[in-house]
């Protein structure tokens, strides 16, 4: 999947996350989270899943997380990626 434009998904509400996806030459993932100290590695791993599933290898992904659960992370990231890939 090719990232063509900037797109967002999600919210800044508790137990949710806001995802911003932009075109980039490389794959960059930036994470801000209220639980960054404890769970950054798990959040990062969870973001990798939709990336792998959709075959995204180049994008800048910024995540602003407020303690979202795994499936919320997966869904928000996938939504942002799909929006960013639209023609």
């Amino acid at each position, binding site marked *: 999947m090719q990232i063509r434009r900037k797109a*967002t998904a999600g*919210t*800044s*509400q*508790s137990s949710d996350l*806001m995802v*911003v996806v932009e075109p980039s030459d490389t794959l960059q993932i930036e994470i*801000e*989270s*209220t639980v960054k100290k404890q769970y950054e590695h798990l959040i990062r791993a969870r973001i990798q899943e939709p990336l792998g599933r959709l075959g995204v290898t180049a994008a800048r992904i*910024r995540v*602003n*997380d*407020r303690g979202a659960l795994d499936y919320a992370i997966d869904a928000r990231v996938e939504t942002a990626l799909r929006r960013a890939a639209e023609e």
Partner: protein
Amino acid sequence: MTGAVPLLSERDRLEARKLIESEGLRFETDADDIVGLYEGERLVATGSRAGYVLKMLAIAPSQQGGDALGELVTLLMQRGMDAGHETFFVYTRPEHAPSFERLNFRLLVTHGMAALLEIGLGIREYLDTHRALVRPGRNGAIVVNANPFTLGHLHLAETAARRVDHLYLFVVREDRSVFPFAARLRLAREATAHLPNVLVLETSRYAVSAGTFPSYFLKRLDDAALLQMQFDVRLFGSVLAPPFSVRARFVGDEPYCATTQIPRLAHGGAAISASRVRECLGRGDLDRVASWVPPATMAFLRSPAADAIMRCLAGAGEG
């Protein structure tokens, strides 16, 4: 309670104003966007955005402690990103800073009655793009608006540059001046090109002028000017000074504290200042200005690129 919505009608905005004022805040009219949160027919929370600054966030007591703030910030940021902003500031009272930190805002500075936090790309992006200018040593800094760059600025830069390893000349990015930012930056570069240890760069969002410093959360407006100045000095000290190893900030002799003052350069018995330069330009007295500004500024003033500025200054003089 449904999600936050934009407040577009006069009636909705009047409701927002009432809520803002009932929370002890002052309503300011420069908002690009006002959003709100309804419970039935009643507005229970509101927030605004002016450019990249989120402001006038007010939440009715019944909704405090819930996630009304998250909802307001979400919509303000989404709409702000649509308007092209990547970083958002919020000024608030220090006791409210933790509420924003829970939304992943980063605290930049807190002083007296005010705290400033940011979210988004922010200072990291700024430092990433200016990494090539980082020099080790005992460095100094000057922050100028340079509207336009005068011999006074040059004198300050030359004097300060002799006392430090590297001198950073920060030009205020914010475009609220007659001379546009691009011209102010370029003239500062050209005028100091002969000084090998002077580096010219921009302040981005990290210089707060009286124009952007919001006062809506202050109890008394007359405190705003002094607080803004102190706040700006603190912001520079905590955000811009450390990454560039700045140990001293130099200013022309104005009543500042915690800075090193250098007497202003005078010509014909009076100190040179950019405001005097603009006044003279307003009268069309270009020859007189020639003795107050460096050649680069003079060349710009005589070029067609400055026509619009000259007309604007002349108009200001008549009005």
